[in-house]
């Protein structure tokens, strides 16, 4: 983990208020798993006053030889809105890589992994899918969005494996939710990231196969020190009784922690 002023080498809007940002720096060499995240200080040139706190953003994909990583984030908030105005050539204060990502090794070579994402939960799944593919694991994606204007990376995912796009209004792909097509698919292991109701539904439906979930939580430090981001363990006899999303997660085995 390091704090680095990383160079913006590509930045643009790839869907409605969805930005793709490519950063270059040494930090990239420390990434160990897909699903890790970084904590970004959006300075606004204002001496770290507005916004005060860092913003957690998943690493979508990385290229170690180029020392680049790609983030995909929704703009429009105080911090992400300012971040979206950063120009190519400027630099961004990044802390990371943080947390534990998706356990790629849990998928057996030659097996079939199901990858399920919703909205801005989709980005880290791209790097995951790439990593699985590299290990010769078949990947199938179910990606849910609100509407056609919100869809991103469709082609990129299609290049890695079969991809179902689900939209709430049916303007792209199938109309409905990610869980609507779940029953029709066969797989050995599943990975998911997205809104809480989606994760809860998956926990209820995928009970026989290994399932890993990436959680979101409001954060302070991002490194495990402030206890802002904790979740209760489901096991009442767990010696700690809690997990920190930032440092013990953000990826957990399904039903390891309470989803609330």
């Amino acid at each position, binding site marked *: *983990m390091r704090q680095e002023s990383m160079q913006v080498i590509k930045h643009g809007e790839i869907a409605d208020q969805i930005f793709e940002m490519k950063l270059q720096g040494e930090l990239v060499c420390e990434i160990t798993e897909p699903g890790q995240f970084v904590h970004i200080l959006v300075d606004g040139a204002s001496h770290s006053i507005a916004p*005060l706190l860092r913003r957690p953003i998943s690493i979508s994909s990385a290229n170690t030889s180029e020392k680049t990583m790609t983030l995909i984030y929704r703009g429009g908030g105080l911090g992400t809105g300012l971040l979206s105005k950063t120009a190519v050539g400027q630099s961004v204060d990044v802390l990371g890589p943080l947390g534990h990502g998706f356990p790629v090794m849990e998928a057996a070579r030659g097996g079939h992994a199901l990858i399920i994402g919703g909205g801005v939960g989709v980005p880290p799944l791209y790097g995951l899918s790439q990593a699985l593919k590299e290990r010769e694991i078949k990947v199938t994606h179910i990606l849910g969005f609100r509407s056609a204007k919100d869809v991103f990376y469709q082609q990129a995912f299609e290049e890695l494996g079969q991809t179902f796009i689900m939209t709430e209004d049916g303007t792209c792909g199938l109309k409905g939710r990610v869980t609507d097509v779940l029953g029709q698919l066969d797989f050995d292991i599943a990975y998911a990231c997205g809104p809480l109701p989606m994760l809860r539904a998956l926990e209820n439906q995928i009970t026989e196969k290994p399932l890993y979930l990436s959680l979101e939580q409001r954060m302070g430090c991002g490194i*495990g*020190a402030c206890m802002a981001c*904790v979740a209760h363990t489901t096991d009442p006899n767990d010696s*700690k009784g809690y997990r920190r999303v930032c440092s013990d997660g953000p990826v957990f085995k399904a039903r390891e922690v309470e989803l609330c």
Partner: protein
Amino acid sequence: MLDVHLPGLNLKNPVMPASGCFAFGAEYGDLYDLNELGAVIIKAATLEPRFGNPTPRVAETAAGMLNAIGLQNPGVDKIIRQELPRFEKLDVPVIANIAGSEMEDYIKTAEKISEQTVVHALELNISCPNVKHGGIAFGTVPEVAAELTRKVKSVSKKPVYVKLSPNVTDIVAMAKAVEEAGADGLSMINTLLGMRIDLKTQRPVLSNLTGGLSGPAIKPVAIRMIYEVSQKVSIPIIGMGGIQNADDVIEYFLAGASAVAVGTANFVDPFICPKIIKELPKKLKAMGISDINELIGRSWKHV
């Protein structure tokens, strides 16, 4: 130039992470050598383990943040067994922040933790706004604060610093009450009680509803209180609230603090404490100051 000597605390520099913003040092210890710090104030210890409040526990505000962690900690016994040994190999004094719901809790916690060799002082947290039972009263009624201080002093093997709440009408009365009751020093200030409402859900952001406001937003309140209190007590003050850089540290000393703690700024920049410690001597030199202790209370000591 930077060393300060306070009851129980011979510090190589006056900068330490604030309680609750540094856990028990493990995480920041992975980033830099904790020996660079003046001291470490660890997260509040309570007698029994606590999970704290439901999430969301933090919310950002203008130049500040609200937190309602709710004193999550594994309990004093586990802290002694699992967290304090880390400091045995280090050369940095630990200040143990202690909290409780009842007087008895405080007393037992103080008794246990003050016996540990690595613990050089206690910080009596009478002001955490996130504890429901009793907690808040300790910090707002001078007589109650004084009684608690007296009882903790009577069992503690180490000097006791009382951490004051800013959510009171008369901070000087609080400070004088605990001084008379035997406090060896003060910590000022804890967080201001605040709230943020989410426009989408139309409910408070924090599941605990209210939370403690920290960060640069509260610095003027802290400076004012330390300025007032330092003129009326003769025990030293560890100042805190919104410190982000070496200039802020100097402002706290001028107001009347004898050491400082850095809280929220650790989240903004995890290396902030060592950075400030490195920056301070340069700033002092530029001011023509050879010993930081010269600055204590200069804003009111007409020199």
